[in-house]
C-alpha cells in the first residue's frame, strides 16, 4: 500500500532549513552579491520606472485578452511551420513530449533549463516512458546529480557553494583533480556535455517569451547550452506556460531590458535566441510548441490573483526577500519559491501545504519594489490569506474549534465595542501577574509561546493611554 505523505507546511520545512548553517551562509552570500549587482544595473537606466510601467501594462493587456493572443500565436507558429499543442494539465503535456520522442524513435533528449518542465515533472514522466532526459544547464545538472529539486527559479543550485559542487562532480562525474574555482567547475560541465550536444536528436526547452504577432519564441540564457539544444538536434519541443505570450514584436524592447538587469544584474545576458517555427537549413527540422495550462487558468479567474501571471521569472523578488534569504527555496516545497512562489503556487495547486505559503512573508514589500512588472505581491499575499481563511472556515465544525479562528473572532468582537475593549484591557492587566517578572514577560502561554521562545514580551503598564488621558485632561 502506497502511503501518501502530505507535503509539509512552510513553517515546518522552514524550521529545518533555518538550522542548516551551510545553507544560511551560502544563501546570504549569494543574495547579497546579486542584490548589489541588480541595484547597479537598474540605477544605470534613467527610464527604469517607465520601463516597469510599460512591462506591467503590456502584461495586463495580454492577460485580459489571453485567448485572443494565444490563438494568434498558434496561427503564426503554424504558418511558420511549427506544430502547436494545447495541454490542459501536466499529464497532457508530458504525454505530448513523450509521443514526439517515440514518433522519432528517440530514447534520450537534451534539456534546456525550464522550471516549467520541472513543474510538470517531465523528467520523471519521460523516464517512465523509457526516455532519458539529460539536463544541460549547469545548475540543473548539479541538482540532477545531487538528486535534489530546484531551490531557485533562475539559479536552481544557489543553495550549494563551490566546494559542495566540486565534491559532487568528483563523486558523480568522476571529475578528479578538480579545484573549486567556478571556472574549473564550468569546464568540467562543458566536457561532460559536449558529446551529448553534438549527437542529440531531440531537445526539450521552455520559453521566456513568445510573440503572438510573429510566432517567435525566445530563450534567454547564459551558458550556451540553450543555443546548443535549440540549434543542433532535428526535433525541438518547447513547453511554455500560456501566460508567457506577448502581443507584438515591439514588446520585446521592454522585456529584453527588464529581464537581464532584474535577474543576473547584467546589461544583457550572454545569449538570447529567437526562432520562429522552422527555419530552412538552420536548426531543427521539426518544432513543437506545447501551450501549458496546469492551473494557470485558476489564477487567471481571480481578478486579484491574476496579476501573479505577469511574472517574467527574473527572481529579483527571491533575491531581495528576507524570508527566502534565510530559508532557501526547498522550504516552500514548490518549484516556485520565494515571494512569487508564495502567490503563484497556491493558485496553481490546491493543497494544504500551498495554503501556508502566503503566510511565509513579513509583508515587508521589498519584492514589490524590485518587481520589473510591478506585481503588488503584498496585496496578493493578503488576498490569498483571505482565501485560505475562508477555505478553513468552510470546513464546518473543525473550523469553529480552530484556536486561531476563535481567537481572531473574539478579538474582533472586543474591538467592535468600546466598553468591551476597555474591559479587556483591564482584564489583561489584572490577569498578567503570574507571568510578569521585573516588568516583562518571558513566557507566554499557548500559541503565544512562539513569541517568548526568542523574545521577552512587554507587561501591560499600570495605566492605559486612555486612562491617562481621562485622568489628566
Amino acid at each position: 500500500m502506497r502511503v501518501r505523505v502530505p507535503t509539509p507546511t512552510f513553517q515546518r520545512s522552514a524550521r529545518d532549513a533555518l538550522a542548516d548553517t551551510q545553507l544560511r551562509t551560502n544563501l546570504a552570500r549569494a543574495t547579497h552579491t546579486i542584490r548589489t549587482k541588480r541595484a547597479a544595473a537598474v540605477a544605470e537606466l534613467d527610464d527604469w520606472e517607465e520601463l516597469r510601467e510599460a512591462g506591467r501594462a503590456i502584461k495586463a493587456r495580454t492577460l485580459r485578452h489571453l485567448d485572443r493572443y494565444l490563438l494568434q500565436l498558434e496561427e503564426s507558429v503554424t504558418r511558420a511551420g511549427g506544430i502547436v499543442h494545447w495541454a490542459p494539465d501536466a499529464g497532457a503535456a508530458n504525454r505530448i513530449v513523450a509521443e514526439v520522442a517515440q514518433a522519432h524513435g528517440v530514447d534520450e533528449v537534451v534539456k534546456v533549463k525550464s522550471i516549467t518542465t520541472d513543474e510538470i515533472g517531465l523528467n520523471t514522466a519521460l523516464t517512465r516512458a523509457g526516455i532519458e532526459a539529460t539536463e544541460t544547464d549547469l545548475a540543473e545538472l548539479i541538482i540532477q546529480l545531487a538528486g535534489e529539486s530546484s531551490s531557485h527559479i533562475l539559479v536552481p543550485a544557489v543553495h550549494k557553494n563551490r566546494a559542495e559542487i566540486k565534491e559532487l562532480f568528483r563523486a558523480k562525474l568522476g571529475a578528479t583533480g578538480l579545484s573549486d574555482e567556478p571556472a574549473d567547475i564550468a569546464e568540467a560541465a562543458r566536457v561532460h556535455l559536449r558529446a551529448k550536444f553534438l549527437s542529440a536528436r531531440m531537445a526539450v526547452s521552455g520559453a521566456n517569451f513568445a510573440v503572438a504577432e510573429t510566432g517567435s519564441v525566445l530563450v534567454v540564457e547564459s551558458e550556451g547550452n540553450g543555443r546548443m539544444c535549440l540549434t543542433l538536434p532535428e526535433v525541438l519541443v518547447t513547453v511554455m506556460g500560456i501566460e508567457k505570450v506577448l502581443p507584438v514584436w515591439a514588446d520585446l524592447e521592454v522585456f529584453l531590458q527588464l529581464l537581464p538587469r532584474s535577474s543576473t544584474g547584467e546589461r544583457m545576458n550572454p545569449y538570447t535566441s529567437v526562432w520562429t517555427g522552422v527555419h530552412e537549413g538552420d536548426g531543427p527540422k521539426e518544432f513543437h510548441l506545447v501551450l501549458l495550462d496546469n492551473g494557470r487558468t485558476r489564477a487567471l479567474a481571480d481578478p486579484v490573483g491574476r496579476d501573479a501571471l505577469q511574472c517574467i521569472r527574473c527572481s529579483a523578488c527571491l533575491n531581495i526577500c528576507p524570508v527566502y534569504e534565510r530559508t532557501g527555496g526547498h522550504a516552500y516545497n514548490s518549484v516556485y519559491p520565494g515571494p512569487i512562489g508564495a502567490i503563484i503556487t497556491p493558485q496553481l495547486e490546491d493543497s494544504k501545504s500551498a495554503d501556508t505559503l502566503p503566510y511565509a512573508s513579513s509583508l515587508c514589500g521589498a519584492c514589490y519594489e524590485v518587481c520589473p512588472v510591478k506585481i503588488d505581491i503584498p496585496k496578493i499575499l493578503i488576498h490569498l490569506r483571505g482565501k485560505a481563511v475562508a477555505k478553513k472556515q468552510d470546513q464546518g465544525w473543525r473550523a469553529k474549534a480552530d484556536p486561531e479562528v476563535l481567537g481572531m473572532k473574539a478579538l474582533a468582537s472586543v474591538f467592535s465595542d468600546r466598553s468591551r475593549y476597555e474591559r479587556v484591557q483591564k482584564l489583561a492587566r489584572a490577569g498578567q501577574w503570574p507571568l510578569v517578572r521585573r516588568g516583562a514577560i518571558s513566557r507566554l502561554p499557548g500559541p503565544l509561546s512562539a513569541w517568548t521562545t526568542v523574545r521577552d514580551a512587554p507587561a501591560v503598564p499600570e495605566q492605559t493611554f486612555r486612562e491617562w488621558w481621562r485622568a489628566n485632561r
Partner: protein
Amino acid sequence: MRAELFITCFNDTLFPDTGRAVVEVLERQGVTVGFPFEQTCCGQMHYNTGYQSEALPLIRRFVDVFGDAEAVVSASASCAGMVRDIYPMAAEQAGDEGLARAVAALAPRVHEFSQYLVEVLGVDDVGAYFPHRVTYHPTCHSLRMLHVGDAPLRLLQNVAGIELVELERADECCGFGGTFAIKNADTSAAILSDKTRNILNTRSEVCAALDTSCLMHIGGALRRGRAGVRTMHLAEILAHTQDGG
C-alpha cells in the same frame, strides 16, 4: 491647527508613553490634540492575516470615529499605512461604494506622526534635547508604503545632544510582520537575529523607529539577551527637552 490622535490598540494598551510623547510634541507645536474615545483598532492585524470579513466592521468603525477630523495623527506608521493604502482596497473588494467614498475623503487626512510634523506642519526641528547614542531603523511600512523618506532622520538630526549612528542594512526588514512573528516564529527570529546584530554593531544605547510594534519585537530580543540597548518611538525622543521633558 487641530488633530485627532489615533493612538492604535497596542500603543493604547502596551505603550501609553508613546501616545503621551506624541501629544506633547504636537502641543509644543501649537496643535490642539483631541482623542476620540470610541476608537479601538484599525483592523490591520485581522485584515493582513486573512480575516478580511472580520476586519470590515473595524474599518467602518474607524471611518465613523474619525470621519469628521480635520487631521488624524497616527502613533504608528503601519496603522497609518493601513488606513491610507489598504482601506481603499478593502472598500473596493467589499463592493461598498459608500465606504469607498468615505475612505477616499478621510485617508488623505490621516498622517503618520513624522510626516505630519515635516510635511504638514513644515517643521523638522522640534527643540528636543536627547544626549544619547541613537540608531534609527526605518520600518517597512513607513519606508515602502508611506514613503516617509528622510523625515524621521531630519527630525532626529536636529535633536540637540544626540549622537546619531547609521544602521547597516537599515532598509532590511526586522522580521516582525504582525502575526508572522507567531505563525512563522522561527523565520521571524532568524530575520531578527541579523537586525539585532546590526543594531548592536552600532554600539548605540537606543534604537528608534516609527512603529512600536516592530520595536516590541526588536526590543524583546535585546532585552532577552540582556544587551543593554533599549528601543524608543521617535516621538519619545522628540518629547525630551532641556527642561527634562
